[in-house]
C-alpha cells in the first residue's frame, strides 16, 4: 500500500467520502484530548462512526 512517493494528499484522495469524514473526525477527537494521557477514546470514536454510518 505504502509507496515511497505517496503523499498525505494521495492517501486522502484514495479514501471514500465516508472514510475521509471519519478520519478527520477521529483526528479532531484525539487532538482535543491530547493532554489527557489516560483518555478512553472508545465511546467518542464509536459515536463518530455511528454518526457517519447511522
Amino acid at each position, binding site marked *: *500500500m*505504502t509507496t515511497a512517493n*505517496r*503523499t*498525505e*494528499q494521495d*492517501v*486522502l484522495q*484514495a*479514501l*471514500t467520502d*465516508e*472514510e475521509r469524514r*471519519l*478520519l*478527520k473526525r*477521529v*483526528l*479532531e477527537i*484525539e*487532538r*482535543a484530548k*491530547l*493532554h489527557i494521557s489516560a*483518555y478512553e*477514546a*472508545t465511546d467518542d*470514536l*464509536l459515536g463518530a*462512526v*455511528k454518526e*457517519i*454510518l447511522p
Partner: protein
Amino acid sequence: MRIHSIKLTNFRQFNGEQTFNLRSDTLKPVSLIFGANGAGKTTLLNAFTWALYGSMSDDVEEQDRMVTDIVWRSLPTGGSTEVAVELTFDHEGHDYRLLRRAEVRKLSDDQQRPSPEVQLWTTKADGSSETVGAPQERIYSILPRGVSRFFFFNGERIEKLVQKGAYSEVQKDIKVLLDLEQVERAIDHLPKVDRRLTADLKKHGGEKASEIQTAIDDLRERETASRDELKVLEGDLATLNEERESVTELLRQHASAAPIQKQRDAVVKQLDEARTGKSAAILERASLIASRGFLAFTDDLAKKTTDMATALYQKGALPAPLKREFVDQLLDDGRCICGTPLAEHTEPWEKVKDWRQRAGLQAVETAWQQLSGQIAPLSGARLELHESLQAIVKRISLEGDRVSRLEETKSELDGQLMDSRLEDVQQLESKRIDLDSRISVKLQRTGSVKASFEQIKKEIVQKTVERSNAEVTDELAAKARARSDLVQSVRRALEEILAIRSEDMRSRLDAELKDVFGKITIKPYIPRLSESFGLALYQNVNGVELAVPKSTGENQILSLSFVAAVSKLAREIRKERRAEGELPSDAGTYPIVMDAAFGSLDHKYQQEVSRALAQMAPQLVVLVSKSQGLGQVIGELMPYVSHLGVIVTHTTAEGDVSDDIELEGIAHPYVRSSADSDHAELTVIK
C-alpha cells in the same frame, strides 16, 4: 497563541499590581526586558507558566512564598490578600483573558502554598466576554503542558533538551507539536472501537462470519501484543545504544585508548560499507538468477529447436508457410491464382482443397515466427548471463575479502583495548562488548517481531476480505460489518499518514536544524536528527563522522536551534493541506519567552544568537541581564524590539549599590538601594 499582556499581583517579589504590554507584530516581534541578577527575570518567566499551568520550574526556590514578602509582613494575622497573574492573549481567532489567582489567609508568619483558581474568558466579536467552562482543559488544548518547554524556558538550562536520555521525553512533545501524537493515538484507539462493533457481528452474523470474526479478533490481539513488544524493544535499544555511545565516547576521550578507538571508529565505518556492498552484490545475483537464470539451462536448446522445426517441415508436419484463409478465398472465388477455374469436385478444385489441410492458420504462423525470432539471440543472452554472473561473483568475493580483512583488523583493535594494561580501559571495553551483545540480541528479537507483525497485518487484511464476502442476513450484523470495514480502512490510512508525516517531519526538522545551527556556530559541527528524533552533533574527521562531545555552550546553541526549528515547523505544517482539514491562519503559532537567553555563551556566540533570535518565533520575550544584553546583543536585537522594559531591583541594602542602565542614550534605574523593602518593579521604557 500571541500574548498581549501580563499583569502580576503581589506575585513573589513583584508587589502590588504590575502590568507589561507585550503586543507585537511580525516586523518587531521582540520584547526585551532587562534585570539584574536576582531582580526577578526567572520569576517573570515562571509567572507565565504559573498562569497557564499553576506550577513553576524546579529552579525556583521557596515556592511556598508566593506573596510578596513586604505585603505578607504587613498583613495582620487572620487577614487575607491576593496573589494573581493575568494573561491576555489571542489564539486561533479568539481573544482570551486568563486569570489564575489565590486568596491567601495569613495564619502565621510562614506562608502556606496557596491553592489558586483559574478562570478563562473569551472575548466575542461584539466585545462581550464569555466564561470558558473547563478553563484548564482549554489551556491544555491551546498549549499542552509538555510542549510549553519549547516556548517558555531558561537559556541556562535549555541544554537539557538535547542531553542524552532526554529525547524519549522530548520526542513525545515534538510529536504533539508536529501533529503526530494524535495520529498515533487514533491508531491505538481504533481497534477498541472495532472490537465493540464486531461484537454484534459475532453475535448475529451467522456461523461463517462469526468464525471469521473470531479469527480476526485473535489476530488483532496478537497484533497489539507485537506492537507493544516492538515499542518496548525500541525503547530498550535506544537506551542500550545511548549507553554504548557514552562508553565509546569515554574510550575516545581516554588518553591511551583514544588513538585505538579512533582507528576502530574508522574501521567500523568501513566494515559497515563493506557489509552493505556485499549484501547488495548478493541481492543483485539473486535478482539476476531469478529473472534470467533459466538461460543457463538452454545450452543446445536453440540448435535442437531449429533442427526439429526443419524436420517437421520436411515431413509436412509443420504447417506450410501458406495461409488457410488464402486457400479458402480461392475456393470461394472459384478461380486459382493461375487462372484455372475451380468448379466444385473437379480435379483442380480437389488439388487446391488438398492444400487447405496443409496450410497454417495465421495465429499458428505468427507464433512460430515469434519463436523462431527468439531462437537466434538465445545463445548470445546465455553468454551475457555467464559474464554478468562472473562479474557479480567476483564482486561478492572481493567484498567478502574486504569484510574478513576489516573484521580481523577490528578484532585486533578490540583485543588491544581489552588487553590494555589500564584497568579502566579494560572495564570500558568489557562493558562495550557486553552492550554490543545485548544490542545484537535485541536487534534479532526486533527483526523477528517485526516480521511476525507484518505477517499478522497481512492475515488481518485477508480475513477482512473473507468477512466482506461471507453471507450475513441479519441487518444489525450487516451494519456492524460495514462500520468495522470503515474503521479498518481509516486505521490503515492513518498508519500510512503516520509513516509519511514522521519521515517528512524528521527530514524537515533535520534540514532546518542544520540551517539554524550552521548560521550560529563557528565550529565545523553538523547536527543530525535520527529516525527516533535523537539529536547528536557530528564532525567529519578524515572522512569519518564522529560524534562530538558537546560543551554546555554547544548544547545551548543546539537546543536553541532545535527550538527555532520546531517552532518554525509547527507553524509551517499547519498551513499545508492535511487530514485535519483547514486550520486558522495562526495555528501552530506560539511565543517564545526566554530567560537568560544567552546562557553561558561568550560574546561571539551572543552576537550570533541574538541575530538568529529575531527570526526564531513570531513573538519573542527576551529576559536578560545588563552584562548579557548590552553592546552587540542590543545592537542586533534593537531593530526588532517593540517593547523595552527593566525590572528594577529595589534593595534594602545600604551603601552605594544603586546602578543605572543606559538604553537608547537615556539612563534608567536598574538597582536602587536603601529601599523600604526588597522588591521588583517592572518599568516600561518603550
